[in-house]
């Protein structure tokens, strides 16, 4: 028995079983949530590469699976990442039952999570690019289920994600060359440029970001929310992995400035666009871009401090996006379009859905007492001494997002009619829990930060081990 078999091969088998059962919605939701929670439990309990004694039996779960001479490695330090990804999957799959997501969502989503774990655990790192591309191709039927028209967002998504592949693979080859000959400056610059382009395509970095708002507007919001959250999280972790693996990349003098510049442009442009959006689904797309910008800004802060902020972003980001996607799906289930014209007076009919949308925007904008605020504050604290200009532009971006939230609030609150509660109970309960989560994380960030910091355990070269958060 080995760890990659448990957390990569078995989940793929589960996804195949779920595919054949996909007509039975609630059974699939139950099985998917249960199996993912089981994988979480295994991640928490099972020691890797150590002898386990169960009564008269003794066995060992090895960390390595060899495939064609290459390795998939999941060690004890990777276990937190695996637990995080499978908890994320269980969370989204449980919600899928409530919002009645398409029947292909859970089987394909399950397989994508397994591939994401494979991408994080494969050695050498460059193979991750190919695995991410497989996940992208797999997501196509999820985004365009039978009976839906193919839109421009999906096609652009496919183009941009596929264009990343050659750059990442070639960068992997160049990286090996730089490792062998660190003095070769030309090779080093090539490696950085290629890696930068690859990640720019993957993360929808400006100017390759046009597909994100279009995709969210076209596909089922819950599905696009899951996809964007999963892929961006995995790609950001891979980016951290590259920084961890290659000392020459960490030490590259211009890297920090480039990350800072790109992150600032993304936050500012997404925020300014958000201020003028008249569609909450497209606003969601801008929020995803803004969050990716913040992640790049966190990575621009050198050493463990940046990585710490980077990890801290995950909770607020994923919770706000999940809550927002849930609220949008609730709107779609009631046949309500996402344009401002259709949302007038929504607060009086669907109060929790309206509050969920508005508070998610506010949280992503970094409003105090909400989930993203403490980590935004940490980032500003670390950026201000070195890059005041960047912080000003980032604050403009946050203000733009806040403006988008205020406009949404004004639209949903504007009504001449009285109150009539039309909220369905199951999504309302989930949204209430999500809203509570946003506030609790915002007020008590210390409760969750130590767990998020553990996500950085595999990235030992960044020097983040045993560092406690500064909040």
């Amino acid at each position, binding site marked *: 028995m080995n760890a990659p078999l448990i957390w990569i091969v078995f989940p793929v088998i589960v996804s195949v079983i779920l595919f054949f059962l996909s007509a039975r919605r609630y059974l699939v939701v139950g099985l998917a949530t249960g199996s993912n929670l089981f994988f979480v439990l295994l991640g928490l309990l099972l020691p890797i590469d150590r002898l386990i004694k169960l009564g008269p039996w003794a066995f060992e779960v090895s960390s390595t699976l060899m495939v064609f001479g290459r390795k998939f490695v999941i060690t004890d330090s990777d276990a937190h990442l695996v637990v995080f990804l499978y908890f994320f999957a269980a969370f989204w799959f449980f919600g899928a039952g409530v919002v009645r997501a398409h029947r292909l969502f859970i089987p394909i989503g399950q397989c994508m999570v397994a591939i994401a774990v494979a991408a994080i655990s494969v050695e050498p790192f460059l193979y991750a690019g190919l695995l991410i591309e497989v996940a992208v191709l797999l997501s196509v039927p999820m985004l365009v289920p039978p009976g839906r028209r193919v839109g421009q967002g999906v096609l652009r998504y496919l183009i941009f994600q*596929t264009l990343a*592949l050659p750059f990442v693979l070639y960068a992997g080859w160049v990286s090996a060359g730089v490792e062998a000959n660190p003095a070769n400056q030309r090779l080093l610059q090539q490696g950085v440029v290629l890696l930068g382009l690859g990640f720019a395509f993957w993360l929808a970095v400006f100017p390759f970001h046009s597909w994100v708002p279009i995709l969210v507007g076209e596909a089922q919001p819950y599905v696009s929310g899951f996809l964007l959250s999963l892929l961006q999280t995995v790609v950001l972790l891979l980016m951290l992995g590259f920084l961890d693996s290659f000392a020459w990349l960490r030490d590259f003098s211009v890297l920090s400035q480039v990350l800072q510049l790109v992150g600032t442009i993304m936050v500012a442009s997404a925020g300014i666009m958000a201020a003028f959006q008249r569609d909450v689904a497209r606003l969601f797309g801008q929020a995803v871009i803004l969050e990716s910008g913040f992640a790049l800004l966190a990575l621009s802060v050198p050493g463990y401090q940046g990585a710490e902020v980077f990890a801290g972003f995950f909770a607020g980001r994923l919770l706000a996006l999940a809550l927002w996607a849930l609220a949008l799906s609730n709107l779609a289930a009631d046949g309500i379009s996402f344009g401002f014209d259709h949302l007038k007076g929504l607060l009086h009919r669907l109060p929790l859905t309206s509050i969920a949308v508005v508070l998610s925007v506010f949280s992503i904008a970094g409003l105090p007492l909400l989930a993203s605020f403490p980590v935004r504050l940490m980032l500003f604290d670390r950026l201000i001494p070195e890059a005041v200009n960047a912080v000003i532009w980032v604050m403009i971006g946050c203000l733009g997002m806040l403006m988008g939230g205020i406009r949404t609030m004004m639209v949903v609150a504007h009504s001449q009619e009285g109150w009539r509660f039309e909220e369905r109970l199951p999504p309302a309960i989930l949204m209430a829990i999500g809203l509570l989560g946003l506030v609790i994380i915002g007020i008590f960030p210390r409760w969750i930060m130590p767990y998020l910091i553990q996500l950085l355990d595999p990235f030992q070269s960044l020097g983040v081990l045993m560092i406690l958060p500064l909040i």
Partner: protein
Amino acid sequence: MGASSPDLIVHVDTFARVNMVYEVLSVISVIMLLAASLAVLITYNWRVCVLSLAVQYLAAFWLINLDYPLAMAAVKLVVGWMVCAMLGATPVDLKQPDEQLPGRLFRLLASAMVWILVFSIAPSVLQWVPTGMVILWGGLALIGMGLLQIGMTTFAPRIVVGLLTILSGFEILYSVLESSVLVVGLLAIVNLGMALAGSYLMTVSGGLEV
């Protein structure tokens, strides 16, 4: 018994000559690639498009075989033809514009510009990808034609064919750098997955322009 030194020199010399002739002959494959990718770009007949794609994969196999052993290069050819079979089995009606000639002329001119660009930048790219010029021409030409294809349309089948062309061009260049079996296998999965996703999108959209 080992061969004596003069024998060995003759063998090495013959091998080098055969290799040189093979490389010179591989210029033919570049010409095939250019013609096939041009046909893919300008045709309004789906069957011609898929057939041209199959020829493109044959020419790519030839170039990949310069660096890969025959068995591994053959994987690329087989996968390429499987991709063509998958796409060919999907009924698609490529949009027939009222005025075909100007559109085709425009595509032809754009292709000519891509080729000029490819042949002019190839010597510079040699610093990035250390290989023979023929492989560079082939790989870059396919990448250029693929980019042209995806840049000129919003039609799902054409975009999928464009992406497959780009991947094919990249595989030609990448074969010089990496010869791992796992990479070859995963690239094969990516190609087949792309064809499957393409067929699915074409079926969903009914093969009509969106």
